[in-house]
């Protein structure tokens, strides 16, 4: 009888102990998970950053919805009767042209700028040319090519890398030396302004003794071609 009571008491105390240990383990796991999850970036962000991220996400959502509606419209157009089909075919050709221009496999023409980065005493570093490309893209540049006093022209696409080379820079493996000329198609005045902001490209070039000369011809031709890339590791996702 005593034995039974003792066993019951032990199991009651044991049950409480087991429950408490279980709660502890649960709390530990929850804490570790909440610490290692990627939410810490958001949790530590400041109020203004969060508001801005939210408004940008909303703008992106709006744009995606427009894209979706547009795609659905195009799909139905392609399946529609003769007139719709004609419009759809034109749209298809336009998209293929766009793709070619962006990929660098098609020559392009349009309004834009001819930018001369004249070399001074020292060579213009690759980082400055990279910055120039980024500023131009930020201002709306759609197609670009670069040539040097020797070397080039090289079409600038997404995967174009600028690396410092002997007495010049290497762009996609092509060595360019001396002064560089960049032909870019896009909104002329906006791009020109982007180059001259204080602390930007003009200042960076002036620091190495060079000068930036911007010309806005009636039309700019970007006809250097970028070889079609063979993707070996990246596969289109389904």
């Amino acid at each position: 009888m005593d034995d039974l009571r003792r066993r019951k008491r032990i199991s009651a105390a044991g049950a409480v102990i087991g429950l408490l240990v279980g709660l502890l383990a649960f709390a530990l796991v929850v804490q570790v998970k909440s610490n290692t999850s990627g939410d810490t970036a958001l949790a530590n962000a400041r109020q203004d950053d969060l508001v801005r991220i939210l408004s940008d996400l909303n703008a992106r959502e709006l744009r995606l919805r427009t894209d979706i509606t547009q795609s659905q419209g195009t799909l139905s157009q392609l399946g529609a009767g003769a007139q719709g089909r004609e419009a759809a075919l034109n749209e298809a050709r336009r998209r293929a042209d766009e793709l070619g221009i962006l990929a660098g496999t098609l020559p392009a023409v349009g309004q834009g700028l001819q930018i001369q980065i004249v070399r001074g005493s020292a060579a213009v570093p690759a980082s400055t040319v990279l910055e120039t490309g980024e500023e131009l893209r930020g201002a709306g540049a759609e197609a670009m090519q670069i040539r040097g006093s020797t070397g080039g022209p090289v079409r600038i696409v997404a995967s174009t890398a600028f690396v410092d080379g002997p007495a010049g820079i290497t762009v996609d493996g092509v060595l360019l030396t001396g002064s560089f000329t960049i032909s870019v198609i896009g909104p002329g005045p906006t791009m020109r302004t982007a180059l001259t902001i204080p602390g930007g490209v003009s200042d960076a070039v002036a620091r190495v003794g060079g000068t930036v000369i911007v010309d806005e011809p009636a039309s700019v031709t970007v006809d250097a071609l970028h070889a079609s890339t063979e993707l070996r590791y990246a596969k289109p996702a389904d």
Partner: protein
Amino acid sequence: MTTPPRDGLAPDFLSDLFRHPLDPGYADAAARRAEHGPRPPWRRRGAYGLKVLTLVAIGFLLAVAYRQAVKAEPEATRAHAGLVGEVKSAQTATDDLQNQSDQLRRQVSDAQAAALGADAAELRQLRQEEAATGLAPVTGPGAVVRLVDAPTPIDPNTGRQSDQPVNRVLDIDLQGVANALWASGAEAIAINGQRLSTLSTIRTAGSAILVDFRPVTSPYEVSAIGGPNMLGTFNHTPTAATMHSLVTRYGLSFATRSEDHLQLPAAPAPALLYARPEAPR
């Protein structure tokens, strides 16, 4: 302090602290009372009055401190938590829409190519071109370069983040890393989920970095799909060396790792306003 040494060893401050947390003054006062009898009534009443006053002061202090601690926090933290929740749900919504949009664009592209009479080989070429220019989502093995802003200094008194400026990762750092990855053979790059295409920009606006005019925040993960040699080549570029020096000088964080399977989304659909093909097709 006043306790005699035990076992001939003098007690150090720490063991005394742990063993005798009660003020020895109490024991001394009790011993004095036992010896000399209770104190004269006016002194007792004086001490009693002071004790009551002290207790009122303690209660006051507790209430004030509690209100002080509670005052600033709850509104701010509740609003903050609400915002974080909204951002997260907006993120999932846009991710779903992004997937839907990507799928539809793929369908449109295939249908258009078929309408133009493209055969299977041309179709495959088209898909490759789209993937290469960042206009189609891609998967593959590769590497991730992770950059984090320096941690905010914590004000030692309040335990909260102080307002001192923080050393941040700049847009030129991300540009340099992306450039070096391309130079090392990357075939597709995305920064915090924003794919880089021919029209992509990485720029600073105020205190945030924008990729394609969308903000990205620390920590920055630059994901690149490429071959097994890409990461090794990248680690030997001058850019990687510059990044390491930034780590030591400014306390930024810079790390690289390989990934077996990366999935990068498509960049937003382009709309060329100025460039057109030279010869009409």
